[in-house]
């Protein structure tokens, strides 16, 4: 790993560590173990990533900008889906943060390379989060939703890699092997 990659990873870790830690848990009455708290964490992550893509768009042009806009649109749809699932469980989705609050946690993106490296790290975190959710969510329909969204995050991660001139799939197992 190069120093720049390490810095990108550290920046993503900082963003994602701060994206949900201060958010209150879902209010209302989902029963303990329903999966609502985990969905709330995934929602906080989605909102932070959606905001991060807004920052990435400012330094991207051409094909990369078009692809990132499409990814951002899907992240927004994921967040809406997670909000719906939390409500179905009897909870209230946690409120998001303001654009300014998110922006304070992002690294300064000076170039398209910076943005794509940052986005790559964010998508790795998202894929990992959804795959961990698969192991932990108690309900089949919730796991189905996590798997569907996780597959789209796999597409997003691969897209960021291709846009950086890298192979779409780095290895046969994105996280954890059989």
């Amino acid at each position, binding site marked *: 790993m190069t120093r720049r990659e390490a810095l990108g990873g550290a920046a993503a870790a900082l963003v994602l560590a701060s994206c949900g830690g201060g958010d209150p848990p879902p209010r209302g009455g989902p029963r303990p173990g329903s999966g609502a708290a985990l969905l709330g964490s995934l929602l906080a992550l989605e909102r932070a990533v959606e905001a991060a893509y807004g920052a990435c768009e400012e330094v991207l042009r051409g094909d990369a900008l078009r*692809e990132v806009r499409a990814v951002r649109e899907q992240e927004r749809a994921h967040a809406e889906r997670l909000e719906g699932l939390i409500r179905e469980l009897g909870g209230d989705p946690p409120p998001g943060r303001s654009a300014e609050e998110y922006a304070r946690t992002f690294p300064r993106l000076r170039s398209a390379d910076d943005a794509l490296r940052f986005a790559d790290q964010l998508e790795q975190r998202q894929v990992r989060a959804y*795959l961990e959710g*698969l192991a932990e969510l108690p309900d089949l329909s919730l*796991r189905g939703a996590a798997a569907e969204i996780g*597959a789209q995050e*796999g597409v997003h991660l691969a897209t960021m890699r291709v846009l950086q001139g890298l192979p779409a*799939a780095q290895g*046969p*197992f994105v996280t954890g092997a*059989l």
Partner: protein
Amino acid sequence: MAERRDADVLEELLAAERQLISIYEAALRRDAIDAALGERLVAQEREHAKGLERALAGAGPRNPLASVPPPALGAALRSRTAFARFALDMETETVAAYVDAAATIRDPKLRQPLGSIMACEAAHQVALRDSLGQPLVVD
């Protein structure tokens, strides 16, 4: 409808992986795919198949499924574009199979690894779309 045993779910995924291996091997033999891309994809499918075999070894009695080449493969091998479209369809079906399997499989220890392969197959979709000059992210 009776719930599928984990072993049956894994056998179905293994059959899908073997089909992918067979089509990429055929495409490489017939120069119907860029060699570097084809070698990378088939190597990853082989690793998935090995992983599934290992999981099956601990999943109870086996009921192996026959894997036959898809009938449309012959026509798909006539050009790189035709093959990429054909392979993209097959990868899309495989991603759907992993989405279903990762959610439904009973052994929770298998869900994350199956999701890991699912994400890799999703990356294969992106690689094939890139080879076709298509947008990488689609709804």
